[in-house]
C-alpha cells in the first residue's frame, strides 16, 4: 500500500520530468483512440440505421393468384402467431397500385391515366410483416414461404448484404490505421520510460543498494506508463462525447426531413462500449509499453 503510494508519487514526477516524450505518447494514444472511437460511433450508427431501415421495410408476403379473402385472413393469423412478429399490415391491391402510382408517376398524371381503372397490380395484395428482431428474419421468411397460398416472400436481406461489404472495407482500413497508431504508442511509451530510466540511473542504483525490491523500483515506471495511457484514453472520450452531441444535434436540426432514416444510437449506449474499451486499450498499451521497457533496461 505504501509502495503503491510511493509509486504513484514518483510516477507522476517521472511524467513531469519527461514532459516532451510523455506528451507525444499521450497525443498518439489519444489520436489512436479517437480514431477507434470515431470508427466505432460511425459503424454502430450505420448499423443502427441499416437495422432500422430493414425493420421498416420488413417482409412482404404475396399470395397465390385467385386466392380468396378467407384464405388471406387465415394466412395473416398464421403469420401473426409466429414469434418476433410485431405487426402484420394488409395492403390491398388497390392500395398497392395507389402507392405505386404515387412513387413512380408523381406529377405525371397523364401516364397513370393511361391505365384508367384497370389495376395492373390486380393480384398484388400483400401482407407487410414487421419483426421485432430482424436477426430472426431469415427464419420467419422460411416459415411463411411454406404456408399454403403464399406465392412469394420479399425481404430486404440483399440490401443489408451490400451495405455489409462496404462496411468491411472501411473496417479493414480503420483497423490498419488503429493498429499502426497502437504500435507507435507502445514505442513512444517505452522510449519515454527508457529515457526516464536512463535519467534516473543513479537513483535506481542507490535504491538497489539500500535494499529496494524490484517492484519498488519498477512501480514508478509502470505507473508512468499507465497514467500516460489513461490520459490518452480520457482525452478522446471527452472529445468524442462533445462532438457526438454537437454533430447529432446539428444533423437532426438541419436535416429534419431525413429524420425518418437518420436515427442515431444514444450517446449513453455508445459510451457503454466505448468507455471501457478505450480505458482498457489505453491502460493496456501504457502498461505494456512501460513493462517491456522496464524489463529491457532494468536488468540488474
Amino acid at each position: 500500500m505504501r509502495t503503491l503510494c510511493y509509486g504513484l508519487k514518483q510516477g507522476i514526477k517521472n511524467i513531469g520530468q519527461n514532459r516532451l516524450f510523455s506528451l507525444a505518447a499521450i497525443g498518439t494514444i489519444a489520436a489512436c483512440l479517437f480514431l477507434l472511437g470515431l470508427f466505432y460511433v460511425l459503424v454502430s450508427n450505420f448499423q443502427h440505421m441499416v437495422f432500422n431501415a430493414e425493420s421498416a421495410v420488413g417482409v412482404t408476403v404475396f399470395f397465390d393468384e385467385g386466392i380468396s379473402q378467407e384464405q388471406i385472413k387465415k394466412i395473416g393469423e398464421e403469420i401473426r402467431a409466429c414469434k418476433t412478429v410485431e405487426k402484420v399490415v394488409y395492403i390491398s391491391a388497390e392500395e398497392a397500385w395507389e402507392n405505386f402510382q404515387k412513387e413512380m408517376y408523381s406529377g405525371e398524371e397523364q401516364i397513370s391515366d393511361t391505365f384508367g381503372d384497370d389495376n395492373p397490380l390486380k393480384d398484388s395484395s400483400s401482407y407487410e410483416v414487421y419483426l421485432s428482431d430482424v436477426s430472426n428474419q431469415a427464419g420467419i421468411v422460411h416459415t411463411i414461404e411454406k404456408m399454403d397460398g403464399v406465392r412469394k416472400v420479399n425481404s430486404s436481406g440483399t440490401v443489408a448484404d451490400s451495405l455489409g461489404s462496404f462496411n468491411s472495407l472501411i473496417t479493414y482500413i480503420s483497423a490498419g490505421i488503429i493498429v499502426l497508431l497502437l504500435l507507435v504508442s507502445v514505442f513512444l511509451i517505452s522510449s519515454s520510460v527508457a529515457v526516464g530510466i536512463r535519467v534516473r540511473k543513479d537513483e535506481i542504483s542507490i535504491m538497489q543498494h539500500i535494499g529496494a525490491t524490484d517492484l519498488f523500483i519498477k512501480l514508478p515506471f509502470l505507473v508512468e506508463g499507465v497514467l500516460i495511457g489513461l490520459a490518452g484514453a480520457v482525452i478522446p472520450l471527452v472529445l468524442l462525447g462533445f462532438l457526438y452531441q454537437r454533430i447529432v444535434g446539428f444533423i437532426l436540426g438541419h436535416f429534419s426531413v431525413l429524420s425518418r432514416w437518420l436515427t442515431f444510437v444514444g450517446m449513453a449506449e455508445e459510451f457503454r462500449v466505448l468507455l471501457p474499451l478505450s480505458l482498457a486499450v489505453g491502460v493496456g498499451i501504457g502498461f505494456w509499453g512501460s513493462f517491456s521497457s522496464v524489463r529491457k533496461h532494468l536488468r540488474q
Partner: protein
Amino acid sequence: MDEQERLIDMQDVSVRYPNGTEALKKLNLHIKKGEFLFVVGSSGSGKSTFIKTLLGELPVASGSVSVSGRRLDKMKRREIPYYRRSLGVVFQEFRLLDDRNIFENIALAQEILGVHRLRIKRNVGMMLEMVGLQGKAGAFPQELSGGEQQRAAIARAMVNRPGILLADEPTGNLDPDNSWEIMKLLEEMNRLGTTVIVVTHNNEVVDKMKKRVVVLKNGNLVSDEEQGGYIQ
C-alpha cells in the same frame, strides 16, 4: 575462532567480472561482530570489488561467503534486496539524490521498508542529530559541503540500523579535517555496535586509528593485522 562469532566469513572466495578479470583470488577472511576493519591496497587491487561482493552485486565465482549466517554465494536474485537491508553502504561520491532534500534522501531508506510516516520522521530526526546535521533537513545536497553530504549519506546508511556498515573510500573527496570527522563518525557508529568495514587510501588515518588492517594486492589478501598500519 568460534563459528558464531564470525559475522562475515569468506572462504576461498574468487570473484570475476563478466569480461573475465579475476578481481578477487581465493580470499579467506573472517570478521567478527562489532569489529572495525580497514581495507587498503593500491589502485586496482580489488578493494571496491570486495565491497561489491559483500553487497551481493557480483556473483561469487567459487568459494563461500556467509554474512550473518546467510550464504551469499547461494542467494537467489530476489532475496538480495532483503539481504541488503541488513547492510549500510557509503561511497566516495556520496550518491545522494539531487532532486530531494536531506530529509527525503534519508527517509528513502525507510520508505523502502514501508516504515510509517511518523516513525520515519522520528528516526530521520534522530539520525540527523547523530551526524550533526540538525537544521539541514530541508537543504538540498548541492547546498551542503562535501563533509556534510557524506554525513547525510552515513545517516541514510544507518537509519535502518544495519548490523554492518560498508564504506568505499568515504573520505576520498574530502579534505583532511572533514576526513577526520567522517572517520570519527564511523568510529562512533562502531562504538554503538555496528561492524564497520572501511576501504581507504588515507594512510594517515589508518596509522593513527590503530584498527585491524587488511591489505589487498592484485586480488590477493597479502596482510591482515590487528592494530595495523598502512602498508602499500
